[in-house]
Structure formats: structure tokens, C-alpha cells
């Protein structure tokens, strides 16, 4: 099997390259970059298991998802490959389905596993709000997948050659006007050991101060369910935990006033310990918690914060 791997950032590309090289053991792994790769990037990709690095013109990348999809499809066709694997960043999730359609290929979006099987590739993905795993057989050659899976990037010691692909693509363009960065400082929820997360149980934006204070006392980060960042815009998008937001795995996850819609659960399910406070004992969060406190956050939190201050001396 021969595979083309693409990820928009080097660490994503290397991570997915290593995952594919380790899991599928293809005869050739090609890693694609829309640029002329630096020597050290090539060696990182070699360490991740790339046999060859495909260098594509950077102006194609600037033209948007349709053009990137067209270029990657062209490489797959020219090299007669079996699989295109795209790192499932937000842009990756725009490129992969376009490429699949262009190649008339079977596609599995945001796959969580991938293996070879009789009649094609077997991919599994989360469906029905993230509460279920669906297994799909990709029956075409080539096939296309998008994944967030990453493998160990230093596991190989290959010395990939760089192959420059000069191609022109005919695809509609989207012009980037500007990128507006959020004012909030950079939050790395994925690396937090403690996360205090808030949901619709909070009635006003000012009330989030309770959760912020709890987070500060515990040395944790503040997270939220989608309505808080999306509908209400009380917190920035980078604090959104769930299906279309961050996937986190802290040692301690404290869910305050979060009912536990499946879309949220998929983002926090890998937490080591889950503590929840919710007024509704029937909330789905109860089944997803190690410790579930049935009660009013407005009554419990102020007392708990006071007690923590005394005990921790902060």
C-alpha cells in the first residue's frame, strides 16, 4: 500500500505520518507540504516514517481549500496511491471531503482508527453526537480519511528524498482578507491537569466569576460547553470543550452546571476523574461522572470556595 499524508502544520503532518507508518505499514509513505521544506523539517518527517516528501507550490495553499484539495488529488492520481490521509484540523476537514469527491473516493471523516480489511480499509468514527462508534468499510481505491491521530515522531530513522511537484490546478479560489486573533491570551486546555468547566447552569456572565475563582484556587483552567462560547459568547471559542471544540484529558475535570449533552461528553470523556455539580439528578452528566453532586451551584460553590481558601491558605 502507498499512502499520501497531509497536515497543515509540521507537527500534525509528522504525527499523522508516524501513525500511518506504524499502523498500516505501507510500502511507501509520502508526506506532502505546500512549501519548500527546510532540511530540519525533512529530517523530522523522516523520523516520523516518511519515505518521500512531496513539495507542492505554496501559492496553491494560499488559494484555499478547493485548490489544496485539487493539488493533493493530482498527486494521488499521478503516483497511483491507495490512500490520502489528511490531518483533521478545521481546514483539513474542508480539504479532505473535496479531495474525496474529486477522486470519486470513499471518505471517512475524523476517523479514530484505521486498519486494512477484506475489501478495503476499515475506519471507525464517532457518530450520533459522539456517544457511538461507527465502523465503515472504505471500498474504493484510492480512499480518503481525515484523522487527528498522531504517532511517535521519533520512531523511525528514514532519510526521505524531497520530490518537487510542479502542477497547476484549476479550482475556485477563496480570498483571505484577514485573520482576527482573539484578545484572550493563548489557552492550552489540552495540557491542563485540572479543568473547571461551565455550562448553562450559570444564569449570567458575571456568575462565571465563581468558576474562575475555583479554577484559580485549584491551579486549573476554565473550560465550557458550546452554548457558553457559541450562543452566549461569555467565553472565547478556545475554551469550548466538545465535538466541534477541544478534546481534553485532564487529571481532574470539574463540570459545573453542565447537563452532559453527548456533544460535550466527547470532548471530556478521556479525563481521569470527573466531578460534577448539577441541580438535576437525571442529567446525563451523572452517568459520566465519578462523583456527582446533586445541588444548586449557586448555593454550593460559594461555600466550597470559602472552605478551599481556608484549607489551602490562598
Amino acid at each position: 500500500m502507498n499512502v499520501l499524508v497531509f497536515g497543515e502544520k509540521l507537527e500534525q503532518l509528522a504525527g499523522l505520518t508516524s501513525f500511518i507508518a506504524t499502523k498500516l505499514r505501507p510500502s511507501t509513505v509520502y508526506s506532502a507540504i505546500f512549501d519548500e521544506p527546510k532540511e530540519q523539517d525533512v529530517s523530522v518527517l523522516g523520523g516520523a516514517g516518511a519515505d518521500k516528501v512531496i513539495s507542492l507550490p505554496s501559492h496553491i495553499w494560499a488559494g484555499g481549500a478547493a485548490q489544496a484539495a485539487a493539488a493533493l488529488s493530482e498527486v494521488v492520481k499521478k503516483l497511483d496511491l491507495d490512500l490520502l490521509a489528511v490531518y483533521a484540523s478545521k481546514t483539513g476537514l474542508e480539504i479532505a471531503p473535496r479531495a474525496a469527491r474529486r477522486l470519486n473516493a470513499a471518505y471517512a471523516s475524523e476517523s479514530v482508527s484505521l486498519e486494512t480489511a477484506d475489501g478495503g480499509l476499515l475506519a471507525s468514527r464517532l457518530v450520533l453526537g459522539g456517544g457511538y462508534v461507527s465502523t465503515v468499510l472504505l471500498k474504493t481505491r484510492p480512499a480518503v480519511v481525515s484523522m487527528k491521530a498522531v504517532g511517535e515522531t521519533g520512531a523511525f530513522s528514514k532519510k526521505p528524498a524531497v520530490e518537487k511537484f510542479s502542477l497547476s490546478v484549476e479550482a475556485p479560489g477563496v480570498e483571505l482578507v484577514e485573520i482576527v486573533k482573539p484578545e484572550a491570551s493563548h489557552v492550552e486546555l489540552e495540557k491542563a491537569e485540572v479543568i473547571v468547566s461551565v455550562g448553562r447552569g450559570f444564569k449570567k456572565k458575571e456568575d462565571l466569576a465563581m468558576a474562575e475563582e475555583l479554577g484559580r484556587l485549584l491551579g486549573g483552567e476554565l473550560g465550557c460547553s458550546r452554548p457558553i462560547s457559541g450562543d452566549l459568547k461569555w467565553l472565547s471559542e478556545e475554551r469550548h470543550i466538545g465535538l466541534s471544540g477541544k478534546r481534553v484529558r485532564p487529571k481532574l475535570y470539574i463540570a459545573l452546571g453542565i447537563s452532559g449533552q453527548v456533544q460535550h461528553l466527547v470532548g471530556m470523556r478521556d479525563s481521569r476523574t470527573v466531578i460534577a455539580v448539577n441541580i438535576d439528578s437525571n442529567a446525563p452528566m451523572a452517568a459520566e461522572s465519578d462523583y456527582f453532586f446533586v445541588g444548586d451551584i449557586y448555593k454550593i460553590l460559594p461555600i466550597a470556595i470559602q472552605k478551599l481558601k481556608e484549607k489551602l491558605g490562598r
Partner: protein
Amino acid sequence: MPDVVVCVKQTVDVYQLKPHPETLAPQLSQAQPKNSDFDLNALEEAVRIKEKHGGRVVVITAGAEVKPLLVRECLAMGADEAYVFSHRDLARADGYVTSTVLSKMIEKKVGKWDLIICGEASLDEGAYQTGPMLAEIFNVPHVSYVNRLEYEDGVVKAWKTVEEGVAVVRCRTPAVLTVGLEINTPRLPSLLMIRAAQKKPLVELKPEDLGLNPEMLNPLAERQQVKALKTERRRKIFEGKPEELAEQLVETILAEGVVKK
């Protein structure tokens, strides 16, 4: 005046879904069908464009067992007409089949269009694929994850959610856009609008109306199995007075040993 097509999927309400206790398969027949959440955001945005610029809003829905009542809801929200393709083979549809069918509905029944707006992902499959695939079929640009939209004379300016923040992009129509719940709050139709919707055209289509043969309804990605994820949690429940609960909460947090003293 722009002609806007909105693709609306009917799915089960995943919030109500319970797995079978032994097989762990989703008990789909026990959950209510509904219009997929983000698709209603797409429809709301289309109706707002019409209110500002004129034109028409056409809803298209394809599925294994399309419920006309749910399509009427879309008409009540302000769509002018709806086309429906209901076929049992679509229970197995993948993104390839879905985008093929929708593109045929647009090509054969809508004719000229300026914008196609879809929910960024469906409630059940959540694959983020239908919009980009439709754009590829029609060879037009697409913008996903749009949270704010401006349309003026054949040019779309869109604010899209990306990892770094918000990217502001521009493209010409015809184009495909996908939206999430951030872009608007879908309106609840008034009784008057619901009554008016009864008179709007809702056209049910057959494969031959769309030039579809059985082969075109055959998925390239074939679903083998769907099973509930099981989480192993201690599920210890605490109930009582706020003071007691607060005390137990603090003890439970500190007992985890991750908080530095």
C-alpha cells in the same frame, strides 16, 4: 436578487437516543426525528438574506424516510418552496451518495442558484462533508464554519471560525457556505407563518425525476456497525444540604491529589 438553496437533513434526536442494553446499538426507532440543528441555522441565514436582498429560498431534503411535517416547519420559517427525495436506500447513504443526490435535486429542480447554505455538520453523522462535497461537484468555492455573513451583489464576505481565531474571507457567488449555531438563532414560526406554509409548494421527487439509478445510491463507504461507547465511571451520587455537599465536594477534590497545596 439571490436564489439561495438550503440543504436540510432529518435526523433522529441524538439527545434522546438510548443504546440497546445488550447489543449497544442505538435504538433509533425510539428517538424522535427532527431537522438537524445547524441546518436550521442555515435556513435562518438564508431567510435573512431574502429579507434584506429579495430572491427566494429553496429547501431540499433527502433521506430514507422524510417526514413532510418537518419540511413544513422549514417552509413556516420562511422558505418559499421545498423539494423532497425520500428513498429507503438512503438509510445506507455515505457523503458521496448524499452529495450526488442533493446535487441532482439542485440541478434538475432549482435551476439557477447563487448560494447553497448547509449546516456545517449533521447532528447524527457529524462529518462536515456535505457542503465541501457539493462545492466540489459544482466546481465553486466554499467557506465552512461561517459565524457571520455579508452578501452584496454576488460577493460573499464571511467570518469563519478557525483554530487561530476568526478568518475573514471573500469569494464570488455561486458559492457554498456551511454554518454552525454561532451565526444566528433560528426563529420560531408564528401561527400565521405555519398556516401560510400549508399553501407553499412541497414537491416529492422520484429517482427518475432526478436521473438517479440504483448504482448512484450505492455508498462507497459502507457502514458495518454502530455501537455505544461505554464509559466506566464510579457514578457516586451525593445529595444533601448545600453546606454538607460543599464540604464533601472540597474533600473529594483534594483527595484526588492533583491540587498543589
